[in-house]
């Protein structure tokens, strides 16, 4: 059964704020973070409560990490690619697999988006955002993964055993991970995804084309919205839908901070993290009783 009571994906203000509460409530808490996200670039924060002098984003986060650790939370650096449910939440990352009774998604908002003609129109008709979910439909067929980081390589790994052939498309970006052996990498910029009723291929900037049956989008790293979609939490495509207690429609799954939309401020993220923590404490205690 689950290794942790609470796993928090994201180590920004929302995630760390939640960790303070769940640790203090004596719940076994793990915070999984990749980097510092949006706050790494904030050198002077002048509008945060209790700070007489401006503070940097890094300092604020580092201080809170120490605070969470001293309260008993565990912190690890990893990138989560997939989340599923099997008698508890199962999170798959680059470094390992983690299990928890309750999960908080707090990875911030993804500011990445591929604005390629035809991509949105063909979603569900060959364009997919979840390899493990949809690989089944592409048995023996030609597929491509769109992305240039570890997340794209992970999605390729899901497709390779099933698909007839697979290609990695970086859409003009530098490849920041190593592609699996034997998988061709095309770095040219894509101008359009083609197909009337279903994906037929892509056209590149130089006018050349590639025939495809499926295109799996895995841009940047897997953000909170990507993870939410994979487990079946409702999103509007950009942010995760939660109720006033930060609960998603998936029992035990919560979201807080920038990934829920609204005001993108540290103060709101900290507040949402606290609210989510209260809900998670209640949820975990109920599960343990039951």
């Amino acid at each position, binding site marked *: 059964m689950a290794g942790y009571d609470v796993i928090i994906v994201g180590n920004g203000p929302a995630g760390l704020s939640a960790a303070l509460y769940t640790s203090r409530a004596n719940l076994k808490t793990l915070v999984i973070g990749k980097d510092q996200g949006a706050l790494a670039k904030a050198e002077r924060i002048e509008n945060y409560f209790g700070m007489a002098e401006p503070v940097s984003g890094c300092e604020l986060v580092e201080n809170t990490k120490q605070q969470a650790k001293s309260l008993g939370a565990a912190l690890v650096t990893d990138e989560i690619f997939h989340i599923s*449910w099997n008698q508890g939440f199962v999170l798959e990352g680059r470094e390992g697999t983690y299990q928890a009774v309750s999960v908080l998604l707090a990875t911030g908002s993804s500011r990445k988006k591929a604005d390629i003609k035809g991509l949105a129109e063909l*979603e*569900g008709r060959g364009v997919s955002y979840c390899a493990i979910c949809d690989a089944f439909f592409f048995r023996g067929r030609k597929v491509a993964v769109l992305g240039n980081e570890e997340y794209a390589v992970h999605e390729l790994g899901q497709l390779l055993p099933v698909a007839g052939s697979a290609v990695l498309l970086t859409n003009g970006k530098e490849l920041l991970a190593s592609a699996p052996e034997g998988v061709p990498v095309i770095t040219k910029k894509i101008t359009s995804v083609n197909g009337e009723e279903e994906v037929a291929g892509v056209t590149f900037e130089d006018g050349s084309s590639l025939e495809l049956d499926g295109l799996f989008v895995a841009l940047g790293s897997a953000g909170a919205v990507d993870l939410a979609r994979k487990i079946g939490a409702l999103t509007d495509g950009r942010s995760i839908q939660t109720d006033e207690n930060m609960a998603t429609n*998936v029992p035990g799954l919560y979201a807080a901070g920038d990934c829920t939309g609204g005001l993108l401020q540290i103060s709101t993220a900290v507040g949402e993290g606290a609210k989510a923590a209260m809900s998670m404490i209640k949820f975990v205690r109920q599960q343990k009783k039951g």
Partner: protein
Amino acid sequence: MSVIKITEQNFEAEVLKSDVPVLVDFWAVWCGPCQMQGPIVDELAEEVSGIKFGKLNVDENMSLAQQYRVASIPTLLVFKNGKIAASAVGLQSKEGLKKLLGI
């Protein structure tokens, strides 16, 4: 109304020849979002009359999934008079389903 299990055997009778609109939920056991969609469909089916609700397991009925070019699940199709009147891909809320059905 209860939700009908749609198969290759009953598809024509239950969906294509239905007198009322039919919402078909294409799903599979291994699909996380489908596990969330199922109960939402059940709930709406309890509340609404004059519409038929069905679930189609793509593993067991691959030819229908192929025929309707389902390449991502959950996919929800609304059939009226044997033809697709509306479609949605990805998990839909109850409100989303109502919108799809025009109710």
